[in-house]
């Protein structure tokens, strides 16, 4: 987002909103990681504890999904920057 059109007081207020949203995004990311990775990695309910194979799968899954999100974010930012430039 282009912040140059806001004065200092407005930027301060926006920053507080953004901080709160980042916290919410973090929690949503956490939840979706658990749901997704649990679903893919945990299929054995004959034992009570998570085994080492399952644990590795969970860690890899979380790792991969975080990298995926970062890559999507980077590409999305590039498209937004391009479309912003081409509009001017």
């Amino acid at each position, binding site marked *: 987002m282009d912040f140059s059109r806001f004065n200092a007081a407005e930027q301060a207020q926006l920053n507080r909103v953004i901080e709160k949203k980042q916290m919410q995004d973090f929690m949503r990311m956490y939840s979706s990681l658990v749901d997704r990775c649990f679903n893919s990695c945990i299929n054995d*309910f004959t034992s009570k504890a998570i085994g080492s194979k399952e644990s590795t799968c969970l860690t890899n899954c979380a790792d991969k999904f975080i990298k995926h999100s970062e890559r999507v974010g980077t590409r999305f930012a590039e498209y937004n920057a391009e479309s912003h430039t081409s509009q001017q």
Partner: protein
Amino acid sequence: MSPGGVDHEKIEGAVIELDMMTDVFNRMVATCASKCLSQRYAEGDLTKGESVCIDRCVGKFIEANKVIGEKLRESGGGLNPGGI
């Protein structure tokens, strides 16, 4: 603060904690249903096999929360959409 007064920050903290637990509970219910419940619905009671599966599913779900929570704390980020 006067005795009997309301500490609004403490209340807000408790509400956030409540929301988080409710969220975990709801997702646990949905996930363990898809893992453990037969889709046939021949009877309204949980079978023995379903009950055992649910108990283990809850335990493993809580453990998975911890494993992934640690992972996420390490890596920190990747949460900045669209270059905002």
